[in-house]
């Protein structure tokens, strides 16, 4: 039989519906309710197509093909109908696609996912998920301003989850337990990339580029890597040994390092191009402090913040006197003040021309400085510094807020005749950073490099390209000082662009911003969402008392214990949808350009989450009544019903009950078109980086069902099956779908054990020791008693190849036929 779909001629013999023929021919007709070989009264109505000779579109799922049928699956009017139907469904669909924490994180890190791993005790996997997007979990886990926590919905119950402390916990745990992350790396691509600057941006870019198989060389001006993490942030926040460990994890990917190489002095951009680098990334940070432009601003004893912190972090002990003044209200100023306190200065004052709340520094950092007795001189601006006998006399003028400008902003203005004086021994200036003082030097390319009005390198915010071919810029060098996570994010995105450019491939499309939400701001979130959630206050991070902490540069915050981490992870409300990677409703909404801001979506929960089933969690707020679950079930185990249907045909008061025929096989979940049905064991939403599908054979009974293991990091996220694959054609039993979590059970044997003395305990040993011990005993018995004194029991669980090798060992090498397996049990 010959038919035409979208102008494509298709020859098919089968008696089939249009939808089935289209599926076989890889023509995608949207549907939310199709299940192979199954029908039901409910029709989602999306699979409408136009057929020549019919006035109105018809449902492709219930129309049999006939000779010379001419079918159109895409047209403006079809899209319009589909949009209407999808809008109807979207209007009442209620839930979060992505969790607010995930959406808010500049690094787009799967926060809910790693917290879920922690809750399961899978710390290594939690770290792996973080490191999918952020190779600096130790540092970020210590200094991040925590954008995520500001949006945590738990705030509406008792307080946000201590997300960042959890991140730090998993990083620290993996270090303490000597976990080798074994980050995989592609084969050499043939491309070389030079990175200028070994700070968080540069090393992040190096980390992602190396994983792609590129040869990466990092040029660092200082004698050690780390940039601001090493030379800007003091030891009491990020201990140097932790930083060394963190950087070493990145370097283990095989990254070339050139230390003490100053750009513009030791090499130029042209030199790098001459050396055959296919791309150059400038990520040198913005380490130059802006000078203090007042009389006396360059006197001895007036020090730029970056110089000061650089010396402190190199451990140079200098005498800063008894009194010190820090000019500026940024995060760096806070660290300068706290470092001065630890450098023998008794009296440290931060001065800033506005109020404390208006300081650019993170309020948490301001509080920490205050705790350590740092004083604040607010609403005051320095006008002059003079050298006197007693030290440096700093003259200030007091400020007040001026009249609102056009935008309503009140800038501080000087109060006439309000001069005050402060005498100090040291002044540290922290009023901003830039890449260079004036302009780039060292070569022709450098001089051509365009700068932004704020003194940074101008680079395209999307492509990261500078005005020079194949030269990119990212991180603080392009944006001015930002947080570590923003540097990391910038480095990662720059790496993606560099990879796409040098390999001449399309950049992977960014994830759609389409997102159902239970409320964009806290005001919009219905309190009904939190009914039944008990108060559980957040764990408090243990820390050293301020009066003790200021005596040295040792770390102030001590980190969560495992118990605290588990408790804290248990507070997560798991807002994001665990069907994120498989939701057909979302996929079709994106394909058909549904704009949720216009259509609206569900705003309050209508149902209680149903957790009665041992393996399946039900969230009827996400149910679109497509009946796929009922159709997919081979056991008639689901009773789905609705009290009524509203004017747009949507089911009201839905009831879904698993009856006693249910065998927990989970096929309904795999066929659910939204996140209404979820596997209880799959609590990690799969966002951003995709899962890898591995087809394999079930390890249980002899049926040999074909499984698809969905793998991320080193975790089997879930198990599904391919409806087209013999012998099980998409069917699995409870063991097939839910029986693979033993793979990651903490009871797994991880090292050889030997009993060194008869009657003694089994003790860990190296492979060499265990094998030598075993072989020694075997040889002895072989020599003494002959081959038939040895016997081998092989396993029906092991592979055919292993069984072959095992019997061959006993027969060919030992010389006995004493080899059997468990066929009889």
């Amino acid at each position, binding site marked *: 039989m010959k038919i035409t779909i979208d102008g494509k001629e298709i020859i098919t013999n089968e008696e089939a519906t249009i939808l089935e023929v289209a599926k076989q021919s890889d023509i995608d007709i949207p549907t939310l309710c199709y299940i192979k070989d199954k029908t039901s009264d409910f029709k989602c109505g999306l699979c409408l197509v136009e057929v020549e000779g019919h006035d109105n579109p018809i449902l492709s799922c219930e129309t049999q093909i006939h000779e010379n049928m001419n079918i159109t699956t895409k047209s403006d009017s079809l899209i319009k109908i589909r949009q209407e139907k999808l809008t109807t469904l979207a209007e009442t669909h209620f839930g979060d696609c992505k969790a607010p924490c995930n959406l808010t994180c500049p690094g787009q890190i799967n926060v809910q996912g790693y917290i879920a791993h922690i809750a399961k005790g899978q710390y290594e996997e939690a770290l792996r998920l973080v490191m999918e997007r952020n190779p600096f979990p130790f540092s970020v886990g210590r200094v991040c301003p925590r954008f995520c926590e500001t949006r945590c919905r738990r705030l509406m119950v008792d307080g946000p989850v201590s997300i960042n402390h959890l991140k730090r916990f998993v990083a620290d745990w993996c270090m303490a337990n000597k976990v080798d992350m074994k980050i995989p790396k592609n084969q050499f691509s043939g491309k070389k990339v030079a990175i200028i600057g070994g700070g968080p941006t540069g090393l992040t870019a190096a980390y992602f580029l190396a994983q792609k198989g590129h040869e990466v060389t990092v040029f660092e001006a200082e004698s050690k890597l780390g940039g601001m993490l090493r030379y800007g942030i003091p030891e009491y926040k990020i201990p140097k040994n932790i930083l060394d460990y963190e950087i070493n994890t990145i370097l283990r990917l095989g990254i070339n390092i050139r230390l003490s190489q100053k750009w513009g002095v030791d090499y130029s951009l042209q030199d790098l191009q001459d050396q055959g680098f296919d791309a150059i990334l400038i990520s040198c940070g913005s380490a130059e402090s802006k000078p203090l432009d007042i009389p006396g601003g360059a006197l001895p004893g007036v020090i730029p913040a970056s110089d000061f912190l650089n010396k402190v972090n190199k451990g140079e002990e200098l005498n800063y006197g008894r009194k010190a003044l820090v000019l500026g209200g940024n995060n760096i100023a806070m660290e300068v003040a706290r470092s001065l306190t630890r450098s023998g200065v008794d009296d440290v004052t931060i001065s800033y021309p506005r109020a404390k709340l208006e300081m650019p520094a993170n309020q948490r950092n301001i509080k920490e400085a205050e705790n350590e007795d740092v004083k604040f001189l607010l609403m005051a601006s320095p006008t002059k510094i003079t050298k006197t006998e007693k030290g440096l006399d700093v003259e200030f003028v007091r400020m007040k807020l001026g009249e609102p400008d056009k935008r309503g902003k009140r800038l501080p203005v000087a109060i006439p005749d309000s001069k005050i004086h402060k005498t100090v021994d040291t002044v540290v200036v922290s009023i901003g950073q830039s890449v260079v003082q004036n302009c780039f030097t060292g070569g022709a390319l450098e001089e051509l490099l365009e700068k932004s009005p704020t003194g940074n390198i101008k680079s395209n915010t999307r492509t990261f390209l500078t005005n020079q071919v194949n030269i990119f810029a990212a991180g603080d060098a392009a944006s001015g000082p930002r947080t570590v996570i923003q540097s990391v994010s910038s480095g990662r995105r720059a790496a993606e662009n560099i990879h796409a450019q040098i390999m001449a491939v399309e950049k992977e499309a960014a994830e759609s911003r389409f997102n159902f939400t239970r409320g964009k701001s806290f005001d919009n979130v219905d309190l009904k969402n939190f009914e039944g959630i008990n108060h559980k206050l957040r764990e408090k991070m243990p820390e050293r008392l301020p009066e003790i902490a200021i005596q040295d540069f040792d770390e102030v915050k001590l980190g969560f214990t495992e118990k605290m981490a588990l408790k804290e992870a248990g507070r997560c409300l798991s807002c994001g949808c665990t069907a994120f990677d498989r939701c057909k409703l979302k996929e079709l909404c994106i394909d058909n350009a549904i704009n949720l801001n216009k259509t609206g979506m569900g705003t309050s929960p209508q149902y209680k989450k149903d957790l009665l089933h*041992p393996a399946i969690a039900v969230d009827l707020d996400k149910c679109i009544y497509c009946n796929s679950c009922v159709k997919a079930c081979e056991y008639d185990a689901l009773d789905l019903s609705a009290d009524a249907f509203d004017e747009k045909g949507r089911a009201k008061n839905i009831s879904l009950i698993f009856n006693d025929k249910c065998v*927990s096989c989970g096929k309904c979940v795999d066929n659910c078109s939204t996140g209404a049905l979820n596997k*209880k064991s799959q609590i990690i939403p799969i966002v951003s980086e995709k899962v890898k599908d*591995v087809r*394999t*054979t079930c*390890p*249980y*009974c*002899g*049926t*040999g069902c*074909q499984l698809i293991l969905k793998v991320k990091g080193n975790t089997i996220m879930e198990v599904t099956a391919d409806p087209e694959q013999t*012998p099980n054609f998409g069917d699995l*039993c*409870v*063991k097939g779908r*839910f*029986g*693979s*979590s033993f*793979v*990651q059970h903490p*009871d*797994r*044997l*991880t*090292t050889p*054990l*030997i009993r060194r003395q008869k009657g003694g305990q*089994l003790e860990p040993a190296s*492979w060499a020791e265990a*094998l030598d011990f*075993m*072989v020694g*005993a*075997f040889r002895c018995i072989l020599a003494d008693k002959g081959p038939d*004194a*040895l016997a081998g029991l092989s*396993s*029906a*669980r*092991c*592979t*055919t*190849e*292993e069984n*072959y*090798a*095992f*019997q061959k*060992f006993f027969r060919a*090498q030992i*010389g*006995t036929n*004493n080899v*059997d*397996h468990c066929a*009889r*049990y």
Partner: protein
Amino acid sequence: MSNDIDGIKDCDVIMVIGSNTTETHPIIGLRMKQAVKQHETSIIVADPRRINLVDYSQLWLSQKPGSDAALINAMCHVIIRDKLTDENYINERTENYSSFADSITECDPDWAEDITGVPASDIEEAARTFAKAKRGGIYYTMGITQHTSGTDNVKALANLALLTGNLGKHGAGLNPLRGQNNVQGASDMGCVPVFLPGYQPVANDENRQRFEKLWGCQLSSKPGLTATEMTPAMLEGKIKAVWIMGENPVMSDPNADHARKALNKVDFLVVQDIFLTETAELADVVLPAASYAEKEGTFTNTERRVQRVRQAVRPPGSARDDLSIINMVSERINYGQGDIAPNGFRHLDNTKLIDKASGVFNEISTVWPHLAGINYDRLEEAGIQWPCPDTDHPGTTFLFENDFPIGRASFSAISWKGPEERPDSDYPFILTTGRVLYQYHTGTMTRRSQTIENADSGPFIEININDAERLNIADGDTVLVKSRRGKVSLPAQVTDKIEAGVTFMPFHYHEAAANLLTNDALDPYCKIPEAKVCAVKIESVT
């Protein structure tokens, strides 16, 4: 299986005997139910328990445990008596028919009713239903084989299949359902004391010489001991060193206490496993192995389909895949050097797992003609059923289409012997054992998969409602079950799904290990233990 899973849907009659298929092989059980719905297949269930499939069956024969051969002989008797045999088939494809027919002249349904407890009329109906069907498939598992008469039971079923011409065509056959993922592969590979790979007897000089040439070594012609024979040999001090790869005999063996004593006795025990099993705890060396998701290779399923196993994740810590471990031991035992172990396989750490495994598979396909046409490239798309003699061969969905390996198939006269241990006044109940849907074997994997543990309700013993009333046992009461070999206590499940006098326990649970009770008496031919029948007594302890 002589036939394939896909053929189930085309069976006109399915006889399920000694197999709780919907629990032990859920997807095959599902196919049987679908056959009833879509093909109007008739199912005959022969099982001491009212298993789930009974709800879908035309007939349920509730035979006493251990009486299977009597039941089958009586069915054969009826078929011959009523002239329902496939005469053409018998004449052209079989031998020994008349001596077999003679041997069962006495085995009429009344005789069988006494032994099996199944009404004679039901036996008649079953025989006629099966014989009249165009396509009749027989499906069985350990309920048939784990008996001292296990071999005879299988032979009896073979007689039934031959008598009705059901061996060698689609939608029929004699189909043992393999209980474990790769029993088929392990057996195919000669992990059996009497066979070299491909079921070639070690005692046969020609076979052995072929392998000696292939492997470049001398081979012993003396058949080895089966696992069940190894236990007494260890106790007698004949076996001094044992290497156990991926087995847990302390839990899985009948009379498990016996197995524990034996393993304690040997001079040196090596256990290679993914968990510290009850058996591993006794070892001198424990080698941490990789799970199925951490290795490359193949499993051969119950329908002889060779299918790929692919690595999804890395093994934890320093655990290694079993093939690498074998190769490392192999290298050391002969002071081997270089990147080729003395067994001929590459074992270098930097060799990809898939290359190591495919190297072994390629050797297998040269030593066993049934696999000659299979390689990893072909398996990429889908599994292939052996025999597959060359790379253009599509594989074989059912065996014996045109002939049998021995030419004609032979009927065997079977005399019913009954189980070794029968109930008496001291131990008045029969205990039979099996599996439940939610668990698998000794539970090392399922019991560490949280969802499954949540869904399963733990150990139990099924007791007939009348027996329970007599013993004053209520549903859920803890009872003490004793046999001559051991005792366990566990909750009672009072039910009418099992006949009076018979009890059932799943054997998955270490906290109530059924195999502490079971009998390790062996079938004289294939040395399978009689795990399916023993005598117990039951005491209420609550």
